[in-house]
């Protein structure tokens, strides 16, 4: 169905050329489910999009062979590509909120595909759109078709996007990170849907950074790194006997690795009782109690909208609780003026998901870290601790990679020797291999400094790997809490069970 030989894609940017794909060869047979796995910048998306002539702005695509649906795509005129798109291959992108036109109704988006591919009758298009929505299990398809993407939940949106990609009955469905932006439970639903299509005989090309996600679906996995395929094997073979070291790293990272639990917890560092936060008429946090002791890593998990970030802000003193109280190191930390908090401030640090926005863009790394230090102290030792050389000192945050930035953020956080660091999704924006390194670093810091960590994440995997104790939040409440092992192995609350079930896990066959 697809035959690619020595595919090369280069991007001509104003001042330089970027080789995104450097000689990739693969084939896809009908009925197969092939996955391309790689980290950001590996060229996986560009490869997939090249198959429908959408490599991207300024892209130059060369290949020894590029056979799509039995035709030589190298000689395609724009018309030929258009016929192919939608008809032969449907494309599903990451987040339906931006991948579906936000200004048009879901129904219009689906019926557009039908119109482009020859369905003249408007009423027929509407009927088909409803049928398609039904096929991807969207309840009340009539009503949903008339709604806009933002009015649908993440899961429904993504289903609608898939429905639109399937509308013209394409032989091949290309799904580029189809679940990445979704909560775990929703992700599980979408994966089930894709599995269902595959079972129905749909050929699938799956692109993902998450080996765990594709492992459930794919027959064959292509691992890409730096524009090349480093390994290509049937899924099972890849998981058990990866040849390439990079693949092994990926497999290990995806499988997760439990970090050692810390020493016995010390005195209470922060204690929040009956926290409640109401915005307008919506209670975002309801009656939450959190206690973190010295040397302890407490995981706070929940899906988007569960209120976990608000809890972080309340603990950190960026927002005042509507009711309830926060005490830090035994002193009142909520309901007091900032002036009263200031002496305690350095003992409490924060690491955000997106370190770039947490750095003053005009400052060098030196200055950023020095801000956290007494005047005149050198930032170099702290950078060394987080594994960064002195060469980064005079660079600006935007010149660093994501992993390096998060290390700088950690360096800055540990510099004042805090008793507690609140980490809000600190590794969510990072590639899996880098994630593992950062988690190691955090575990090490706890180990060496005895610093307590409140680790907030939607990703149960990382929490399980790191936390001693876990709190599960849902709808502003803590629904379950306990030692990590207990919560993960014997979840008591139904929601926790659901959440755990949804997490794609890489079950490496023994």
């Amino acid at each position, binding site marked *: 169905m697809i035959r690619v030989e020595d595919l090369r894609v280069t991007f001509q940017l104003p001042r330089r050329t970027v080789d995104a794909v450097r000689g990739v060869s693969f084939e896809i047979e009908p009925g197969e489910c092939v996955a391309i796995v790689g980290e950001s910048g590996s060229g996986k998306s560009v490869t997939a999009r090249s198959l429908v002539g959408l490599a991207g702005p300024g892209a130059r695509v060369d290949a020894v062979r590029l056979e799509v649906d039995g035709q030589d795509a190298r000689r395609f005129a724009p018309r030929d590509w258009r016929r192919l798109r939608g008809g032969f291959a449907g494309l599903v992108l990451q987040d339906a909120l931006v991948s579906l036109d936000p200004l048009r109704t879901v129904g219009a988006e689906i019926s557009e595909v039908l119109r482009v591919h020859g369905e003249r009758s408007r009423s027929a298009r509407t009927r088909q759109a409803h049928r398609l929505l039904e096929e991807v299990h969207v309840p009340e398809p009539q009503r949903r078709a008339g709604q806009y993407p933002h009015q649908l939940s993440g899961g429904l949106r993504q289903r609608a996007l898939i429905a639109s990609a399937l509308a*013209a009955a394409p032989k091949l469905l290309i799904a580029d990170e189809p679940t990445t932006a979704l909560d775990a439970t929703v992700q599980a639903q979408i994966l089930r849907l894709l599995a269902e299509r595959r079972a129905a005989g749909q050929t699938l090309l799956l692109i993902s950074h998450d080996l765990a996600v594709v492992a459930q679906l794919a027959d064959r996995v292509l691992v890409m790194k730096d524009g090349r395929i480093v390994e290509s094997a049937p899924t099972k073979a890849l998981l058990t006997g990866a040849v390439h070291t990079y693949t092994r790293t990926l497999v290990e990272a995806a499988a997760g690795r439990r970090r050692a639990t810390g020493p016995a917890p010390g005195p209470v560092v922060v204690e929040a009782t009956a926290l409640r936060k109401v915005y307008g008429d919506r209670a975002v946090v309801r009656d939450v109690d959190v206690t973190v002791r010295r040397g302890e890593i407490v995981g706070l998990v929940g899906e988007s909208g569960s209120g976990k970030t608000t809890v972080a802000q309340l603990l950190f003193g960026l927002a005042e609780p509507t009711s309830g109280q926060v005490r830090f190191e035994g002193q009142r930390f909520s309901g007091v003026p900032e002036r009263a908090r200031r002496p305690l401030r350095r003992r409490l640090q924060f690491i955000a998901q997106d370190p770039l926005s947490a750095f003053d863009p005009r400052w060098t790394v030196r200055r950023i870290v020095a801000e956290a230090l007494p005047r005149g102290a050198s930032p170099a030792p702290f950078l060394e601790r987080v594994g960064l050389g002195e060469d980064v000192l005079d660079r600006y945050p935007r010149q660093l990679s994501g992993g390096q930035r998060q290390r700088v953020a950690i360096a800055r956080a540990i510099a004042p020797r805090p008793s507690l660091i609140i980490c809000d999704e600190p590794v969510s924006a990072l590639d899996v291999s880098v994630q593992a390194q950062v988690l190691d670093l955090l575990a090490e810091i706890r180990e060496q400094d005895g610093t307590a960590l409140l680790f907030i994440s939607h990703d149960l995997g990382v929490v399980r790997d790191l936390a001693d104790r876990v709190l599960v939040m849902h709808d502003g409440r803590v629904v379950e809490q306990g030692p990590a092992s207990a919560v993960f192995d014997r979840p008591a609350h139904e929601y926790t069970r659901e959440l755990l079930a949804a997490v794609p896990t890489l079950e490496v066959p023994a």
Partner: protein
Amino acid sequence: MITAILRRAGAGLLVLWAAATAAYLALLAAPGDTVDAIVGDGADTPGIRAQIIQEWHLDRSAVVQYLDFLLRAAHGDLGRSYLLQRPVSAVIGSQLAPTLKLAVAAAVFGVVLALLFAVTARRLTSTAGLILVSTPPFLIGIILLSIFSFRLGWFPVSGDRGFAALVLPAITLGLPIAGTLAQVLRDGLDRALDEPFAVTARARGLRESGVLIRHALKHALLPAVTMLGWSFGVLIGGTVIVEQVFGRPGLGQVTVQAVNSSDLPVVLAVVILAAAVFVVINTVTDLAYLLIDPRLRRS
């Protein structure tokens, strides 16, 4: 819903009051008093001055005059023009239609041209638009006038008689708008075409023109709508100059004359009118947003 409308109306009134008061205070600070303005360069004796003071009630304190002005304005009475000896509402009223006609024609021309440019000739847009925006509008007017009216005789030189007389002024006024709008649209289109949904649309087999018109254009309209308020500012400001160049009747002429001769009631009325237009345009802009972007609508 009702509270929203009430709030809107309240805010509108507040803007009107603020504009009127600010202008009133500003003019109070102007050199030369009202009597000077009424006397102009004509004969000037104490007797004449006394009569003027009596006729226009200028002997009252500034506060009383201001309150009186507000009270009357609230009843729709904007006073009488010192210079033209007619009710201000009549002066403004008679000039409103030609200016509105010009502004609307220019806006339509500008928007159509901008759309044409942005959609069909995107590459040309930035250069052409930049030059148009950077040229003093009166120069454009003068050049258009001398070519198309004096030399070629295609359009009447001036006045407000029929469509033909509207063409050149509307073009003059519309070109800078088209220039800016085309650039904003072009930027918006470029941005929208880089969005994931544009990739999705292309992946459906949609032509580039289809992606442009069915998807990207609506997105590009959002920033363009923001420009709407600005455009009307430019239009109204532009009429001041364009009407002068083309000898068209209209508020622009009235404004310049009123400013020149310190015709306080007329200046105040123009300010209030401009503020009212602002309120209306603002409301229209908000409505347009709601129309274009469903995300802003509350269920």
